[in-house]
């Protein structure tokens, strides 16, 4: 596992930075794109800045999928499901 504490991001290549990304995202504590520790690196590597920004957008938007929205088709079980469950609830438990 990459040691984030000793890593010098100012002198890193894009490929090296990528190796740290899973751990950086798992670390939490705010957006990587807004962390001053990476400011120099991102200035020198705009592609990496764009990548991080995109991955943050994806992760943020994913949270909105947690709660199904009313008009989205196909995100609700069929109306027949509850009667089936209710019927099974009346059956004696299996040994």
């Amino acid at each position: 596992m990459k040691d984030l504490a000793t890593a010098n991001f100012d002198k890193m290549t894009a490929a090296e930075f990528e190796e740290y990304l899973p751990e950086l995202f798992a670390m939490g504590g705010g957006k990587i794109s807004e962390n001053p520790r990476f400011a120099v690196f991102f200035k020198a590597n705009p592609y990496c800045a764009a990548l991080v920004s995109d991955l943050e957008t994806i992760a943020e938007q994913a949270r909105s999928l947690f709660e199904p929205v009313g008009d989205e088709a196909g995100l609700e079980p069929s109306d027949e499901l509850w009667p089936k469950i209710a019927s099974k609830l009346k059956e004696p438990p299996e040994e």
Partner: protein
Amino acid sequence: MQTKPNPGFFKRNPPIAGEAEAIEQAKNGDAEAFSKLYALHKRRVYTLCLRMLGNVSEAEDMTQEAFLHLFRKLGSFRGESAFSTWLHRLTVNLVLMHLRKKGLNLVSLEETINPSEDDAPKRDFGSRDPQLAGSVDRVTLERAVASLPPGYRMVFVLHDVEGFEHNEIASMLECSTGNSKSQLHKARLKLRELLRQPEKLAPVAGLQEVAR
């Protein structure tokens, strides 16, 4: 005695009006109260099953299993976590058990959740691909998630959508936390790739067809 809940558990799952009463009544065998719990949680449970399984029929079967299991286990719910979190964990465990019964080898899960080279995200550091437009609409993201290889999709749904921690996912999937972090990162990279070309994503007819 009811354990005092940790407020942190309720960040994503705030208590729903009437839910606590319904839980207590359902614990005492009140069928009407249980039907209320079903009505409150059916969509989230079904959506979770559908995202994990990618198949409408199986998702309905597992939703049924989840609520039957809930009925039997409700008495053990002590309120240490949000009810939704508890129910979703129960559902995830049932789905994983179902997948294992279908042949997913628990021991070699770290290997089996790795997709083929074709499915893996491309390594394109230094290239000049366009950035995402700053926001992603949820329908397009839903389609992209459904297009992910199953292993990536599983970790992405559990972490980014459901909000489970890497150590919880590692425990559920019987893999290392490092593997969970790595799979999540690859899933997001793959999603980025898919979202850059949304016109290539299969249309969502339910979620089922695109997920196969």
